[in-house]
């Protein structure tokens, strides 16, 4: 019973969060604590971006290309953020907790050039 109630609540929350996050054009946002360091439309067709995010420990290098976004290097000791690999879906996040850097993908790719046009 407890399992079923938990399952239903989690699935509902997941659906609701996905709906909220998918609104608007797809953007990659890079934060340090509460500060928005950079914001890029996604995907970036034919263009690669290497962003240096200054965090609590030093610079995290964040690489954005047409396939997605990933941490290419980080000053943290665990390197979980680098090992986390590429992310490209709306609602995906990559966090480097020791360096306090967060990368999120918000919005829907459909609105930002994933398709040339939507015809009904």
């Amino acid at each position, binding site marked *: 019973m*407890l*399992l079923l109630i*938990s*399952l239903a609540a*989690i*699935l509902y*929350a*997941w659906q609701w*969060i996905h709906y909220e*996050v998918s609104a608007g054009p797809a953007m990659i*946002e890079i*934060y340090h*604590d*509460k500060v928005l360091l950079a914001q890029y439309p996604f995907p970036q067709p034919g263009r690669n971006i290497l962003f240096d995010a200054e965090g609590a420990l030093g610079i995290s290098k964040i690489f954005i290309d047409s396939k997605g976004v990933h941490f290419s290097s980080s000053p943290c*000791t*665990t390197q*979980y953020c680098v*090992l*986390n690999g590429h992310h490209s879906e709306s*609602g*995906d*996040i*990559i*966090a480097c*907790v*020791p360096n*306090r850097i*967060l990368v*999120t993908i*918000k919005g829907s790719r459909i609105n930002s050039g994933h398709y040339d046009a939507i015809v009904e």
Partner: protein
Amino acid sequence: MNRSISRPSLPALEHKAKWLSLLLLAISLHVFEAALPSLGPWFKPGLANVVTLLALIILGPSAAAMLAIWRVIVGSFLIGTLFTPTFIISLAGGVAAAAAMITAWRLLPGITLIGVSLIGALTHMTVQFITVESLFIHQQALYYLLPPLLLLSLLTGWINGGLAAYIVSRTEDSD
């Protein structure tokens, strides 16, 4: 001069020996989980929580709470993360999970070990996120990750609860 030496009673010694054995097992599992390949960001199977659950059933609430605290302190010391953000997140999650399991065990009559373990697993994951958001990242976007990880916690909580129930039943059989 006569000095009377107060010796602990045999049941008290047995209680301490059992607690230390469970603590060593929990620390071993903590270190083992740290050595496992990553199953995803911030996700671990939570095997050490099985030992907290066993301590709760076999030795009682205070022993379980102390075990959760000492397991994280000694385990983090051994894997080299003592006083790092990882340690703070582990400690918050472990202590909150122990508190939730103790509360559920005491206040919900008829709850099974699987139910207690599910509550512990969900609390552990949720409190880890709250700790990261409030102390380190300060972005509510972090919670986007919470629902899928809670689903995985349900699975591991269910497996760990079943494992604890099996161990307790075997222990009772052998007594």
